[in-house]
C-alpha cells in the first residue's frame, strides 16, 4: 500500500491536515484580511465578542481576531524554524556518534546526556532571558533544549545502518565520510527522524506560547501566548481574551499531532503491520 493510501485511510490524520492547512491559510491571509497593524487600537477597550469585534477587543481596544490571524504567523514560524535547527543539531551529533562509534560516540553521547539533565523549560527560560527576548533568542532556546532526543534517535539509526553492506562498500571504495553520512546513510535513516520532527513542531509551538505567557516573547510580534499572558490581569473581567488565543494554540497543536501520528502509521512498517492485519 502506498504512503498516501495508508495516510488517507487515517481519518484523524486527514482532519489534522485539513486544520493545519486552515491555520496556514490564516497565517498567509492575515496581511490581506486584516491589513491594519494588529497592535493598533481599533475601538473601545474590553468589548465582548459581538458586533464591533467578532472575538472582542482587549484592554487597549485591539482586535482579538486580528491578533489570532497575525499570531498564527509567529507560532508556525517558530515551530518550524526551531524544529529545523534542532533536527540539524541532533542529526549532526547523532550521525557523528553513531557513524564513528568508539570515543567519538562516547563524548557525543555524554554531551547529549548533559543537556538532557538540565530541566529543559528552565533552561529555555534562562536562555531567552539572557539573550533578551526576541524571535531569534526564542528559536535558539527551543532548539537548544529539544535537539537531544533527535541525536539519540539519529545515533541508533546510524548504529544500525553503519555495518550494512552498502555502507561498508562505500567506505572501502574510498568515498569521504561526509558523503557517506549525508549521501548514503542519512536518506535511509530519515523516516523516523521526519516523524519525530513533525511532533517536535507541536512541542515547539507549546514552548513558545509558554515563554510568551511568562512575558518572554518577542515584544514586537503579536503571538498567541503573549495574548493570553497580557490578558491575565483582566481574565476575570474578559474571558474572551484568554479563551480564543488558547483555542488557537490547542487546535493547531492537536492538528500537528494528528498529522504526525498519521505519518507514523503510514511510514512505520512495523506499525503498519499492526494496523493492517
Amino acid at each position, binding site marked *: 500500500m502506498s504512503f498516501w493510501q495508508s495516510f488517507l485511510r487515517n481519518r484523524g490524520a486527514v482532519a489534522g491536515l485539513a486544520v493545519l492547512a486552515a491555520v496556514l491559510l490564516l497565517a498567509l491571509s492575515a496581511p490581506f484580511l486584516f491589513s491594519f497593524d494588529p497592535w493598533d487600537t481599533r475601538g473601545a477597550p474590553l468589548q465582548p465578542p459581538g458586533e464591533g469585534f467578532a472575538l472582542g477587543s482587549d484592554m487597549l481596544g485591539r482586535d482579538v481576531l486580528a491578533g489570532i490571524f497575525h499570531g498564527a504567523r509567529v507560532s508556525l514560524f517558530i515551530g518550524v524554524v526551531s524544529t529545523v535547527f534542532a533536527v540539524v543539531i541532533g542529526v549532526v551529533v547523532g550521525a557523528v556518534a553513531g557513524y564513528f562509534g568508539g570515543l567519538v560516540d562516547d563524548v557525543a553521547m555524554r554531551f547529549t*546526556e*548533559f543537556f*538532557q*539533565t*538540565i*530541566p529543559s*523549560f*528552565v533552561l529555555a*527560560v*534562562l*536562555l531567552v*532571558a*539572557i539573550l*533578551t527576548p526576541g524571535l531569534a533568542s526564542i528559536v535558539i532556546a527551543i532548539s537548544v533544549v529539544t535537539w537531544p532526543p533527535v541525536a539519540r534517535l539519529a545515533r541508533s539509526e546510524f548504529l544500525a545502518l553503519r555495518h550494512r553492506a552498502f555502507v561498508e562498500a562505500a567506505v572501502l571504495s574510498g568515498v569521504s565520510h561526509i558523503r557517506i553520512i549525508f549521501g548514503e546513510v542519512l536518506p535511509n535513516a530519515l523516516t523516523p527522524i521526519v516523524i519525530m520532527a513533525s511532533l517536535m513542531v*507541536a512541542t515547539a509551538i*507549546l514552548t513558545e*506560547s*509558554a515563554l510568551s*505567557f*511568562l512575558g518572554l516573547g518577542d515584544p514586537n510580534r503579536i503571538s498567541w*501566548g503573549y495574548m*493570553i499572558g497580557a490578558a*491575565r490581569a483582566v*481574565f*476575570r473581567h474578559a*474571558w474572551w481574551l*484568554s*479563551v480564543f488565543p*488558547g483555542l488557537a*494554540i*490547542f487546535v493547531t*497543536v*492537536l492538528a500537528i*499531532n*494528528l498529522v504526525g501520528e498519521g505519518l507514523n502509521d503510514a511510514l512505520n512498517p*512495523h*506499525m503498519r*503491520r*499492526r494496523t493492517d492485519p
Partner: protein
Amino acid sequence: MRILLFLGGWLVKAALILLAIVVLNFCLVRLAPGDVATVLAGESGAADADFLARTRAEFGLDRPLPAQLATYVGNVLSLDLGVSYRTRRPVADMVLERLPATLLLTGTAFLFALGVGPALGVLAAVKARRPADSLITVAALVFYAMPIFWVGLLFILFFSVTLGWLPPFGMRSLIPPSGELARAIDVARHLVLPAVTLGLFYVAIYARLTRGAMLETAGLDYVKTARAKGLPEWRVVTAHILRNAMLPIITFAGLQAGHLVGGAIVAETVFAWPGIGRLAFDALLQRDYNLLLAVFLASAVAVVLFNFVTDLLLRIADPRIGAAGG
C-alpha cells in the same frame, strides 16, 4: 560486584555532570546584562556610584570572572551555596523552604498521572477500536495538545470564579484555620486545581504510551503463543503484555520524576503556588545569581538521582538491559 561497579560508575558520572552544570550555569548567568547592584539601586529609587561599588564589593562581583567562578565552585563543593543577593539569607535555606511546596504539587500530579494514565492506557488497549478506546485516545490527544497555563486559567475561570468551588490561588488561606486537620484540608483544597492541571498533561502521555506499547507487544510472537496455549485473556494481558509494556512507562516516569523539582514554573506562576519554580523565575528577573544557581543545582540533582533510580528499576524489570549494558 557488578552492582558496586554500576554504583561507582554512576557516582563518578553524576559528579561530573553536576560539576559541568555548575560551571555552565555560572557562565550563562553572568553573560546576561546588568547585575544585582543595578536591581537594588532601581528598587531604592536612588543610587550613587558608591552604593553600586559597595554592593558589588560586598558580593565579590567586582572581582575577575575566573576568580568568582573558582570561589563559587569551591563553595559548592563544600556544600556552601552562598547568600541571596537580595534577601541576604543563605540560598540553601530559601530553596529548602520552597521545596516542600513544589514537591507536594509535582508529587501529587505525578501520583495522579501514574495512577490514572496507565490504567486508561490499558483500558484503551484492551478495548482497542471500540468506543471506550476512541474516547480515551481522543481525550489523551486533547490534554496533550492544550497549553498547561491555558488549562489552568480555564479551570480557575470555571471552578473558582464561576462555580466558587475551589480557591484559585496560593497554597493556603491567608489566615489558615486552626487545627491540624482543618489546615491540611485547606492546603488540599488549594492543591486540587494546580495538581490536576499539571497531572492531566502527564495522564495523557502515560495513556498514549501504555496503549501504544501494549498494542505493539500484543502482536509479538510470544503473546500469540501464550494465547495459543489457552491461557485466560486477563493472564495474557497482565503477565505477558503489561510486563513488557512497563518498560516505556518506567522510562517516562523516571523522566517525569526528574522534573519533580524544576518542572512546574508555569503551573506555579498561574496558581501563585509558592514553590521553587516561581522562586527561580523571580530570581531570574531580579538577577539573584546565587539563588538561581541553587535552584538549578537542586533540579539537576533531582534529574540525576531519578535517572539512577530509573536505570535500577529498568534492570529489575528487564534483566536483558543489565546484561547488555553491564
